């Protein structure tokens, strides 16, 4: 279709319409997220067409070749959220993922460091302290295989990951609220150094290996939080029916008395009591008391309220930081049976 055949339409519009017939031109290639596979050979040849003395002719240039080297990169990611522990716990695990973000196969050396500055205590590495999450459960159990440096260093293909557990014991001297940290480091065996460093012929298939932006080493830090305050909570109820008796009939008033007491060393920081109203009942307005002091139903500056935001009415009372010396805290509220 030549533009000259239709004088009413400018040439560039024809070209644009032609382009609209082109569908989905995203390249398909051998690249993974980590980049083109190591050892891939990329050729380039230019073609030239021309007329000479009226004869159409064609030629090709030489073909250039480049070979893709291995780029070494690794990422270590913490998978566990802050893990709650108690003093003297043994074999408490933190879960990590190590991913080969380079473009070739690479073997990684793993190391644990639990003596990190800035936390409240040093977790004590168990023996062994590094495990593979062999059964993929995310937690530490008998099916997980231990790691020995130099013996079973993980070998990962490009974009491949392995799940690793760090296992530590918690010392007996910690108190509630203490934080202890443990670091897992993965380092590429081919080399780790300033990005751009070349390890000649050390890549897959004997091509060069070049250290990528990660430097060939990556670490992540997991955290234990000591949370072992013992709190005793007891709930009692009494019934008063409209006829002066104690029958649980419609219209009867139920009075709930909840006692809360810290029964160990340590502080239960920012304690909050939440108790949902039974479904067969209706909350008696303004019936909440804390240690005999009335608490308004509204959310205001006092220690509690009735919370209707979730659809079920819930009594909420903030008890603050509690220790054993604070003694028994008593919350009372009432409902009527529907």
């Amino acid at each position, binding site marked *: 279709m030549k533009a000259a055949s239709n004088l009413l339409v400018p040439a560039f519009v024809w070209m644009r319409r032609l*382009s609209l017939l*082109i569908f989905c031109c995203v*390249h398909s290639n051998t690249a993974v997220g980590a980049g*083109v596979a190591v050892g891939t050979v*990329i*050729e380039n040849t*230019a073609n030239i067409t021309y007329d*000479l003395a009226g004869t159409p002719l064609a030629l090709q240039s030489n073909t250039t070749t480049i*070979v893709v*080297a291995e780029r070494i990169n690794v990422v270590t990611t913490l998978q566990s959220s802050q893990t709650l522990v108690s003093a003297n716990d043994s074999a408490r695990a933190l879960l990590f993922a190590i991913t080969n973000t380079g473009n070739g196969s690479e073997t990684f050396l793993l190391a644990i460091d639990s003596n990190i500055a800035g936390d409240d205590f040093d977790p004590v590495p168990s023996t062994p302290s590094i495990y593979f999450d062999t059964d993929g459960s995310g937690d530490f159990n008998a099916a997980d295989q231990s790691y020995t440096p130099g013996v079973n260093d993980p070998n990962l293909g490009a974009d491949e990951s392995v799940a690793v557990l760090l296992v530590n014991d918690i010392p007996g001297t910690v108190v509630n609220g203490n934080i202890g940290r443990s670091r897992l480091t993965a380092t590429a065996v081919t080399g780790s150094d300033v990005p751009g460093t070349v390890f000649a012929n050390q890549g897959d298939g004997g091509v060069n290996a070049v250290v990528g932006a990660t430097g060939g080493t990556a670490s992540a830090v997991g955290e234990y939080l000591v949370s072992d305050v013992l709190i005793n909570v007891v709930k009692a109820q009494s019934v008063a029916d409209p006829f002066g008796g104690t029958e649980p009939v419609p219209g009867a008033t139920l009075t709930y008395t909840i006692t809360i007491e810290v029964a160990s060393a340590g502080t239960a920081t920012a304690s909050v009591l939440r108790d949902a109203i039974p479904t067969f009942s209706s909350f008696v307005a303004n019936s909440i008391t804390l240690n005999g002091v009335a608490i308004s139903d509204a959310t205001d500056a006092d220690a509690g309220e009735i919370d209707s935001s979730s659809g079920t009415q819930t009594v909420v009372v903030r008890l603050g930081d509690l220790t054993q010396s604070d003694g028994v805290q008593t919350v009372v509220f009432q409902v009527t049976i529907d």
Partner: protein
Amino acid sequence: MKILTAIILATLAVSAAAETHLDVRTTVQKEETFINDAGEQQTRLVAADIVVPGEKVFYTITFRNISEESADNVVITNPIAADLLYVDGSGIGPGTDIQFSVDGGKTFASAEDLVVIEDGVERAAEGRDFTHVRWVMKNDLEAGAEGTARFAAILE
């Protein structure tokens, strides 16, 4: 049979002659940073042999008319390897119009006229979509004259 032979011979003759008209060469290079005599950091182009994902390579095509007649309608076409991403704006070719293809070389247009459809949505084509780049000489390539075409691409 004689006519067929004559045609074959003529074709062969033309091919043989074609090889001596233009000298076309391609090089591939990459940038290297070095410290010059003044102690400053400078970059230069060096031959590219081994390349790492993310690195940029420069392709340069030189074409010289080594015949005694001028060549016209000269078009240099370079297919872009699947693992290379053309760098937008990197095409250079004095005396040429630079065009691109996004359909495997079937059609060509200037960069701003090309569109692609991705996930059902139409958008302007970018360097990464180009499958070919070509340089269309605006004038004849006179006998003895030489032209240069260059583009850059990044290895995925």
